[in-house]
Every structure is written in structure tokens, then in C-alpha cells.
């Protein structure tokens, strides 16, 4: 028998009992539909996350000092650090061949009493160093309203929220535009009684976004200025020497270099996180999620396989005489087995095709529904959450066929074993 003969005979047998074939197929269809929908969700979400992470640059490594446990809470002193991010460490990193850039960070103390002064007007404002990394997921930069964003590392620049300016009476686009390039000041008032103004130039104004990307501070400044503010606030001109930087961002030349840097700095006692590590963690949890979701479909397929086996056993009873005839005209037990297994596999494949198409359509529908829901909730998220890839289609079809094949093995063996004389006598 050629493959064509087998396919033709199986199809012809299946088309003889259309209703029963469809009913046996339903189980596989539901199983594969579930499997494809679930797995395509896994693939889609993972792809979205991976893309977001890749935008951030997987080579980026973030280093923080490890602090000792503080025994008492103090507004004016931070917990002692076990290891320091010294300027020497920054230089060491910059000197390495496998490092493209190393940028130290200094936070403005959250306890500091800071006001923004524009002309004669002054308002309390929260200030920090630039807290977002361009393109990094989950730390999206706020929308630019006027001027430009800060150039990291450039001293004397300030980036101000339009809300804060409005509180000072500078409302409307024209007023905001007029302020770009003007000198303003951050005024610190220490509990010890001193007051100090730090003059800065407005380079840009941003719209604060209090949605999922916010909240932002009222103003952002660059590292040299945040260091100056912190040193003055703690009244410690040599604070860098005593405490080091608050963080260091290193961009490695390659992913492998990043992994090595992470290992080396962890050995030296720093707390190191990299986008790669986060991505690995997310990937790991996605595999768990996919396995769980896949199991649901798997269970449905197990039940479906019992249905197929039942259909094929029924077919033996119906076709006993026919099997006898086939044996009499020269079919070997192997031929009979092949025909039955092919028929069961075909039921699986048919279910697989319908299930895959159904799962794909369901994914498209659900994707639209989710996006519509997010839009209605005013959550600015876009993307494709259900992705049916080529390998997923191939996997689903192959899996469905194998399920059918396995379900057909026992009935096929029984059919092949039938005694031709008995079978021919069967009515």
C-alpha cells in the first residue's frame, strides 16, 4: 500500500460516518484549541516582555552597595555601607575593555527639605536624580512639554514638571516655553538652620504622568548636582569618600561580559542586578506558566484519546466482515494495523487542524477584547498577547496526530489479530 492508498482509504472510512467522525474529532479539537490558545498566550506575553527588556539593553548591569542593618532610624544619617561604590571603582569599570560606559548615581536624600525658586516665587518640590534609564521597561520617561530632556552627567541642568510650574503661576505652553533656558534655584533648608540655594538652568519641562508610569518627582537633576545637594544636606563635603555613590550603571560590551561583571562584582560584596537576570527570571516563570496552561490542554487531549480509541474499537465491530474480506484478498495483519492507526491519526490530525485554527481565531478575538478593555480603563498598553508561531502550529498538529496514533494502537492491534474465517462469518 502506498501512502496515498492509506490516506484515501482512511478518509473514505471516516467520511462514511461523518457524524461520528466529527464527534470523535471534537475532543481533540477542544484539547488542541485550549493548548494553542494557552501556549500562544505564553508565547505572546513572553515575546512582549523580552522585547521590552531587549530595548533596555540586556548588557546593562546595575550595582548597589549593601548596607548594614540599621539599629535606629534617623532622618539625617543613612545606614552604614559594607562596601562602597568609590570613584576608583567607577574608574576601574571605565578602564575595562568589556565595559562601554559606567555612570555613577547619587540620590537626593528623600528627607531633604527642598523648594524650587523661580524669580521671587518659591514652592516646595520633590527632587531626585534622573530615575529613568532611556528605553528601560517600567521606568518610562515622562512626556516632554518644552525644551529637551536632561543630558545625563551634565552639571547645572534641571528638568521641571509643568504642574510645579503651574503652582508658581507659570501656566500654559507660552509660559512654559518662556522658562526654558532661564535660571532657577533649588533652595535647601536644613534643620540645623542653614539655607542654601543651588542655581540651575531649566533645560526642559515635562508633563507629569500619574498613570502606571508615574509618579515622578517635581524636578529632576543630574548626578554632580545631586551629589552637591546630598553633601550639603548631610553637612559632609567628603560624603563621596565616606559613603561612595548610591548606585552605578555599567553597560557591558556584550551579554557574556555582562554576566562576568555580575559574577565578579557579586564576589566583591555588591548587590548587582542586570536586565538579563530579570529576563531569565521572567522566562523561568513563563515556562512554569506555560507548563501549567499546557497541562489543561493535555488533560483534554487525554480524554479525547480515550474517545478516539472508543470510536476505533466500535469500528472494528462494525467492520469485522470487511476486515475478513481484506485479509482474504491479500491484506496482511500489518496492512490492517496500518489502516486503523492511519484512521485514528487522521481523526487526531483533523481535530488538530480545527483546534489550531480555532485557537488562533480565539487568540485574535481575546487580544482585541483585552486591548479594548485596557483602552476603556485608560491603561496605555498595546501589543499582541496571543502569538501563534510556526513551531506552535507544527507542534499542535504533530501532537494531535500522535494522540490519535496512540489511541489507535490498541484497536489496530485487535483488528490485525482477527481470524479471517471468523471475520468472514460475521454478520
Amino acid at each position, binding site marked *: 500500500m502506498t501512502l496515498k492508498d492509506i490516506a484515501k482509504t482512511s478518509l473514505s472510512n471516516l467520511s462514511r460516518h461523518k457524524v461520528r467522525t466529527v464527534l470523535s474529532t471534537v475532543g481533540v479539537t477542544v484539547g488542541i484549541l485550549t493548548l494553542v490558545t494557552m501556549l500562544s498566550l505564553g508565547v505572546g506575553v513572553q515575546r512582549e516582555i523580552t522585547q521590552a527588556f531587549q530595548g533596555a539593553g540586556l548588557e546593562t548591569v546595575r550595582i548597589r552597595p549593601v548596607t548594614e542593618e540599621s539599629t535606629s532610624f534617623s532622618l539625617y544619617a543613612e545606614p552604614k555601607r559594607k562596601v562602597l561604590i568609590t570613584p576608583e571603582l567607577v574608574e576601574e569599570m571605565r578602564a575595562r575593555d568589556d565595559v562601554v560606559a559606567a555612570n555613577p548615581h547619587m540620590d537626593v536624600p528623600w528627607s531633604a527639605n527642598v523648594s524650587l525658586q523661580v524669580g521671587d516665587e518659591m514652592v516646595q518640590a520633590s527632587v531626585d536624580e534622573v530615575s529613568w534609564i532611556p528605553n528601560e521597561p517600567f521606568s518610562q520617561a515622562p512626556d516632554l512639554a518644552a525644551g529637551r530632556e536632561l543630558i545625563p552627567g551634565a552639571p547645572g541642568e534641571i528638568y521641571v514638571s509643568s504642574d510645579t510650574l503651574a503652582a508658581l503661576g507659570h501656566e500654559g505652553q507660552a509660559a512654559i516655553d518662556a522658562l526654558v533656558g532661564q535660571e532657577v534655584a533649588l533652595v535647601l533648608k536644613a534643620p540645623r538652620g542653614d539655607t542654601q540655594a543651588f542655581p540651575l538652568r531649566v533645560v526642559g519641562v515635562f508633563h507629569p504622568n500619574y498613570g502606571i508610569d508615574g509618579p515622578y518627582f517635581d524636578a529632576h537633576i543630574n548626578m554632580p548636582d545631586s551629589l552637591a545637594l546630598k553633601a550639603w544636606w548631610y553637612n559632609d563635603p567628603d560624603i563621596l569618600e565616606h559613603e561612595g555613590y548610591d548606585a552605578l550603571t555599567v553597560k557591558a560590551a556584550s551579554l557574556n561580559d555582562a554576566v562576568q561583571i555580575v559574577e565578579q562584582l557579586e564576589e566583591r560584596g555588591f548587590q548587582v542586578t542586570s536586565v538579563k537576570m530579570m529576563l531569565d527570571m521572567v522566562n523561568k516563570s513563563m515556562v512554569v506558566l506555560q507548563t501549567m496552561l499546557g497541562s489543561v490542554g493535555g488533560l483534554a487531549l487525554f480524554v479525547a484519546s480515550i474517545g478516539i480509541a472508543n470510536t476505533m474499537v466500535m469500528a472494528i465491530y462494525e467492520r469485522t466482515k470487511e476486515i475478513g474480506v481484506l485479509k*482474504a484478498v*491479500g491484506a*496482511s495483519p500489518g496492512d490492517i494495523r496500518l489502516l486503523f492507526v492511519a484512521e485514528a491519526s487522521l481523526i487526531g490530525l483533523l481535530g488538530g487542524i480545527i483546534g489550531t485554527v480555532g485557537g488562533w481565531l480565539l487568540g485574535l478575538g481575546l487580544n482585541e477584547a483585552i486591548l479594548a478593555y485596557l483602552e476603556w480603563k485608560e491603561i496605555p498598553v498595546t501589543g499582541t498577547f496571543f502569538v501563534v508561531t510556526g513551531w506552535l502550529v507544527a507542534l499542535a498538529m504533530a501532537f494531535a496526530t500522535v494522540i490519535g496514533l496512540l489511541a489507535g494502537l490498541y484497536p489496530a492491534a485487535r483488528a490485525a489479530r482477527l481470524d479471517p474465517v471468523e471475520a*468472514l462469518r460475521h454478520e
Partner: protein
Amino acid sequence: MDIVVRAVGLTRRYEMGDTFVDALRGVDLTLARGEFVALVGPSGSGKSTVLNLIGGLDRPTSGEVWIDGTELSKSDERTLTRHRRQHVGFVFQSFNLLPRLTAEENAALPLMFSGVPEKERLSRARTLLTRVGLGARLTHRPTQLSSGEQQRVAIARALVGQPALVLADEPTGNLDTATGVEIMDLLKELNQEHGLTLLVVTHDPEIAAFADRMVRLRDGQVES
């Protein structure tokens, strides 16, 4: 004499629970090439059992069956399958055509298991169907054919593999007398035209009269 079938001392015992039924009790039978033999006897005499043993559908409890030099009684399943494929053609009382296949597909069916390409096997089936008078009904399904026509398709199916031997079990049993005679005429013609060796099982003396020779069975033994 060119011997096609030689059966020696055939016995066949069936187990029925605790008891045994001896369907055959030592049957000797020889068929020369081109011979047309009728195997007659009352119901339960063991006619069909002999046919099944010669056809390789069953194995004897003891005795030997030689077909064209091959001994079947101790052969494995593979040899029996090859024997059915290459050396015998079956014609049944109830035709046993596959209802979803057309006349030509039914007639070509045995060649599918021999691996003959579809085009060639259909062409051979058409030639034979034309020979048995069904040239105009090639694409009809069994339900669209009369009983006589169905048996003609079955005869074409039995001949399509060019077997040395055709075994017919009550081929006219489901046909009216006139049609039965037509079918026997056809078998006789094929026997004479192609030198086909024919073993026909029947309980009808009129049908048996078409044969060159008659072998009578009674209670599992050949009556002399």
C-alpha cells in the same frame, strides 16, 4: 499431470468450550491445473473448511496442503498472506464487496496490497470488468448493481491478481436460478479460456453439473 492443489490427510478440529468438533477427518484432494472441480455435500459436511484451508485463511489440525509447491499447514502468517495475495482468488456467496468503493475500485482492491500503482490496477480491473460484461457499470457502487452484477464484480476481483486458483463458496447461493446459471456459465468460460483452476463449493447438483469433476463430502470425509 500438473498439480496445483494437493491436500493430504486434512483434519480440522474446533474447540467448543469443553467439547471438540471434528469438521474434517482426513480429507485427501488433488486438483490438476485447469481443472474445474465441484465440492458438494450437505450442510455441515466440511466443504467451506476445505476451501478455507486451501485458501490459506485457516490452518489444518493435521495433514498437509501443498499449493504450487508450497506447504501451507505449518507456514507463518506472512507466507499465508503472500499465498492469498498471489495464488488464490475468492468468490463468496454474499459477494462481500466494499460498499463505498465503485465496481472498478472493488475489482482492483487486491492489487492495492500487492503494491501495484493505482493507474495500472484500475486499468486491469476495467479490462476484467469488461470481460465479465460490466464495461458500462465501472463506476457504479455495489448498491447500484443487481445481485448478478455484484457477483460478476466479485469474480473480476478474484481474477485481478492472476491467481493459479479460484475458490468459490456457494457463488450462486444468493442468486435466482437464471442468474446463477449465467454466473456458472461465466466461470466455465473463464476456466476454458484461461485454463483457470476452479474449486466451487455448492450443495446444488445443477450447479455442480458445470464442473469437470465432483468431490462429495460427508461428515468431514470424502465419499468415494
